[in-house]
């Protein structure tokens, strides 16, 4: 209320849940008489009595917010768990399309940014302006790197037709992937063979092709027995619920669900990273104005907590999505 110059703070946040919006409810309307504590602490909002009270309130607030974030992701984790439990073969199938190296790279990038975020909090507490700004810049740089890697991954997936849900139309079949061929050469060969059968079967099934009223003769593909499917079973590509002679047998029936979950989880996470970048930039501006010190570093602390949560979620997403065995 005593610093009309700090423009960003005066902005009324309407959307998004950035932690900094929680940090301190400054009241720009305040006209009441000043007491010494408020006079000495320009960042102390009128309805708090001490910086400690304000900081504690903000901290509790951000922790509550993190709690909502965990539960926000709960739905996706739940969908993941259910489908992984019921259709493990889908996950085995899909993970061949994911690049573990890029995933691991992103994990490291996020971990490093977590370090700099935590360090930035220390800098803010100790009023080390230069170090603080440097750490924030590194954090933002890491976040951008993360997003760039994500962009590369996504564009590959789009290119390969690995789209979520009903748009899932992979250009490459599993047996064409080197990662799969190397590990399960026999299964790859067998899957390829089956898929040829698939095509044969699919061709006459198109009703437009048949000219007469009598039913188009569909050559019924015998369901392969379990022994015949041995190589696919061994490779984990066939699960108890994946058999469907009418569909492409070389690809588990529910493969599209995985990519739905994959894009949803990583997309939502990426969205959080983007929000995080925005808040970090805001923190950078505040830091450049030398606003932080022992009595006022809440915003940096809360942003860092949010950032760590984003990291935490990735810590789980990485093995769940990229490291399927």
């Amino acid at each position, binding site marked *: 209320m005593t610093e009309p110059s700090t423009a960003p703070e005066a902005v009324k946040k309407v959307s998004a849940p950035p932690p900094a919006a929680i940090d301190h409810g400054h009241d720009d309307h305040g006209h009441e008489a000043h007491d010494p504590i408020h006079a000495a602490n320009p960042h102390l909002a009128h309805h708090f009595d001490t910086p400690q009270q304000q900081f504690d309130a903000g901290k509790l607030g951000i922790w509550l917010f993190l709690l909502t974030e965990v539960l926000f992701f709960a739905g996706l984790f739940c969908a993941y768990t259910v489908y992984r439990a019921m259709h493990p073969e889908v996950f085995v199938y899909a993970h061949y399309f994911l690049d573990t190296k890029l995933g691991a790279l992103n994990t490291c990038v996020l971990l490093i940014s977590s370090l700099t975020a935590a360090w930035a909090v220390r800098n803010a507490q100790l009023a080390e302006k230069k170090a603080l700004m440097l750490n924030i810049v590194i954090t933002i740089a890491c976040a951008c790197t993360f997003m760039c890697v994500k962009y590369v991954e996504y564009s590959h997936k789009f290119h390969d037709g690995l789209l979520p849900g009903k748009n899932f139309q992979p250009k490459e079949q599993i047996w064409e992937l080197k990662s799969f061929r190397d590990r399960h050469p026999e299964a790859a060969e067998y899957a390829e063979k089956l898929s040829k059968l698939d095509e044969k079967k699919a061709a006459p099934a198109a*009703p*437009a092709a*048949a*000219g*007469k*009223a009598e*039913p188009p003769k569909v050559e019924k593909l015998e369901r392969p027995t379990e022994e015949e499917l041995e190589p696919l079973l061994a490779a984990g590509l066939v699960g108890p619920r994946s058999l469907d002679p009418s569909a492409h047998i070389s690809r588990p029936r529910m493969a599209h669900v995985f990519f739905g979950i994959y894009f949803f989880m990583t997309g939502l996470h990426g969205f959080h990273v983007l929000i995080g970048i925005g808040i970090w930039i805001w923190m950078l501006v505040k830091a450049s104005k030398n606003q932080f010190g022992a009595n006022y570093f809440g915003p940096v602390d809360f942003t860092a907590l949010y950032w760590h949560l984003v990291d935490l979620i990735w810590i789980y997403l990485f093995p769940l999505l990229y490291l399927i065995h």
Partner: protein
Amino acid sequence: MTLHLLALLADPKLPKLAPSDSFWLPADASVTSRNIDWVWDFMVWMSVLTALGVFVAIFHFVTKYRAKSRAANEHAEKSAEHNTALEITWSVLPLFVCIALFVWGFKGFVDLRTPPKDAMELHANGQKWKWTFDYKCPTGTLTEDALHVPIDRSVRMLVSSVDVLHSLYIPSFRTKMDAVPGRYTDLWFQATKAGDYPIFCAEYCGTSHSDMLSHVVVHPAGEYEKWLNKACVDADSKSGPERGKDLFDRQGCSTCHTVDGTPKIGPTWKGLFGKMEMMTDGKPYKVDENYLRESMMDPTAKVVQGFAPAMPTYKGKLSDKDIDGLIEYIKSLK
């Protein structure tokens, strides 16, 4: 629409609630209600007593302790803030009642969910907005839009749906089960009284949810088999357009299509054959045997413009003879 409703009101098949002995519950016609009805009665009386107790206390306190006026500045009489005995009583008593109710409810539930081993099996299928029931005939499957069951015989219904959620609800049997697309659910009952009882759809399923009615006919001893034989023979004896007309009613085609020229959820069948129709993909297509066959097997392949792709597939539900019959029937509707 008005016409349709009038037709519905005049429909002799509109189920009637059988007269009931109970004020609250519909007529009871099944052994499965044995664990339900008396618990219901118990709860009604328990609730009436509890509610009366609370209401009398409120009324009594309000009249007895009513303040004269604010200006009189009366103070509340001294009274205990706690009364351990009282509090324990009113905590423990409901606890016991609740435990009892849970146990009884659980018994009823398990009873309703556990069909006897020797139960005969019937399939019920929900689709917007019609129930169909499958019976096994020597010649194949007979699909009817009413449920026929023998008296005093356990029947297990395997319920499913081809489009959205429905719920098979037979009030007189005190049972209900959602029809979930993509899976089975099941329920069972054993009818105890011959008669005709309504079936409702209890899970909201769209436009004509409230018209998704059917009825269950409980046949007296020995009658069920006779009915089934006759129905099988009747259905199978028909062929050509006659068979198609029959299926039009039984298979639920009539919920979306008309034969009088008015469009409903889907195009009318009148004059359909041989017409050029504009499809949603922007291409015209002539309605011929192939198109009709495809529409029954893979309904979303070509959808006529102006209609939603709402039709379920009839793959596996119609025999070749059935399909031919339907096509003949459509051809006959000039």
